[in-house]
């Protein structure tokens, strides 16, 4: 099939590197270079335009004295915690339920997963309508006879973050279910049979054998969900726009507002670097354990 082509053979030495070159350049410049650039800007007093008057860590000091940032961080903690926790629980339970030789499993799985194909902007728009206090869920419940029913979370500064959680769980939980389902299919069947021959009940089998063997899936799901939570920007933009006031801001929205609309590039850059720090704090232990795991194989 393949014709002899002697001169090509010598090209083979540099051709692969040449092919990779654009990607290498782009990665080094547009990922790592820009990361450093943003880091440098976070040490300057840049406002509307980048300037290079270095002011040490004072932008970070301002950041952590900024009430809006502290609210955004607290929101991320609450939103992230609930979002991750609920998605993991729902995901593993639904996956176990769906793994019981269910008829039409494919169709049900398709339904659970479809929100993942949709943009967070669409999700936000839909839930903004569903949760709006005048015509949405509240009115429906009142018309159904629950006259005292109130549901004003979307306009209540103390509750608005839960609206973000509801929409985000709706979007991502099916995907986590799919991850766990794939994990369940990979559990060693002989191990389960052996446990049952030993007289272990269904519940015990799951608790002692199946769930522990899902640990790697669990960690991957955790990292993915944390990553989604930290990057969450579009959902807030569409569902609450950070409001009421700035009560539902997340760090990504803070960063965008300060860098692009409030002419506080230095402060915005500092917030971006803190976000990067959050991601790395999760990513590095994960990659470390992954790599260690591979070495054991």
């Amino acid at each position, binding site marked *: *099939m*393949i014709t002899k082509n002697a001169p090509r053979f010598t090209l083979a030495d540099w051709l692969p590197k040449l092919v990779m070159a654009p*990607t290498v350049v782009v990665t080094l410049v547009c990922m790592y270079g820009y990361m450093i650039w943003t880091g440098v800007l976070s040490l300057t007093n840049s406002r509307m335009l980048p300037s290079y008057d270095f002011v040490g860590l004072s932008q970070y000091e301002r950041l952590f004295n900024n009430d809006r940032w502290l609210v955004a961080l607290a929101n991320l903690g609450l939103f992230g915690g609930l979002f991750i926790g609920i998605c993991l629980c729902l995901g593993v339970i639904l996956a176990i339920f769906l793994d019981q030789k269910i008829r039409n499993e494919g169709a049900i799985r398709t339904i659970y997963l479809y929100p993942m194909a949709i943009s967070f902007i669409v999700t936000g728009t839909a839930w903004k*309508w569903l949760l709006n206090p005048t*015509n949405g869920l509240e009115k429906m419940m009142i018309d159904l006879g629950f006259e005292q029913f109130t549901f004003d979370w979307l306009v209540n500064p103390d509750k608005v973050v839960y609206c973000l959680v509801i929409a985000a769980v709706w979007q991502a939980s099916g995907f986590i279910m799919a991850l766990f389902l794939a994990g369940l299919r990979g559990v060693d069947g002989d191990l389960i049979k052996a446990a049952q021959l030993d007289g272990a009940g269904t*519940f015990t089998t*799951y608790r002692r054998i199946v769930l522990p063997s899902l640990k790697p899936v669990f960690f991957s799901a955790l990292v993915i969900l944390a990553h989604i939570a930290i990057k969450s920007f*579009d959902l807030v933009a569409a569902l609450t726009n950070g409001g009421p006031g700035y009560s539902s801001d997340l760090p990504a929205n803070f960063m965008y507002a300060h860098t*692009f609309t409030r002419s506080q590039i230095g402060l915005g850059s500092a917030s971006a670097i803190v976000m990067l720090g959050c991601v790395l704090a999760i990513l590095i232990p994960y990659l470390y354990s992954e790599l260690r795991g591979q070495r054991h194989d």
Partner: protein
Amino acid sequence: MTNVSLSTRPQKSMVATSLRIALYTVLLSVAALYLLPFAIMLITSLKDVEEIRTGTLLSLPSTLDFSAWGKAWSSACTGSTCDGIAPFFTNSFQIVVPAVIISTVLGALNGYVLSMWKFRGSEIFFAALLIGCFIPFQVILLPMARTLGWLGIANTTSGLVFVHVVYGIAFTTLFFRNFYQAIPSELVKAARLDGAGFFTIFRRIILPLSTPIIVVTIIWQFTQIWNDFLFGVAFSGFDTQPVTVALNNLVNTSFGGKEYNVDMAAAIMAALPTLIVYVLAGKYFVRGLTAGAVKG
């Protein structure tokens, strides 16, 4: 947790049957809950404003009124213009099609090099690229905005194509590299001994095996780029906005009363391209998600 199928004792069959019914009830109720928001969007988009005001979320429209769809498509206001979301739909396609093609081609070539033509430092570079999949894009937004300005492609669809290619390569490379890693390297070694060159081997041996991973990558990239909002809002100009940005503007632009039916029609239209891809090729969609998620 009821693994009924594992229970074999006959006296338990009554219990087993009722557990089975409970299981199906739970699974189907949850399915209904997942479907409900979309169903309500659809119902709402087919009502007129008066019916939305008087009825509830679930009350069905008395007549099927498609006027909200027409308005969302061609005359709803998105910020300062009132041409509906149609022009932005075109923008999204102008961004998505070239960005998907370029990033997939580059990803395939990179994956081929990183699995079959490893060189000194290539593994370290791959690790560096992998970390790039995870960085929050907030750390690159401002420098990228400056760069696009210097390159003279700020606020253009070409600028957005460039950005999506740059930050899509990490994923596409990962997909192809992991896929090609499973191809026996003897195949390539034998071809090299026969004197076949880099591109010949790629075209004759590797590419014919690549169909599944090409489909996965295209679907992944299409979904990611179509659904993007951050880059769209940060780097697009007024008339080059992608549909997600236009939808958000449409929903937040209100002259007089809020027209939820138009909002919902526009939202469904913005979601339709990726939903259609998902329904037609769900298998590949899921494979992309899990491949992107669980790193090899």
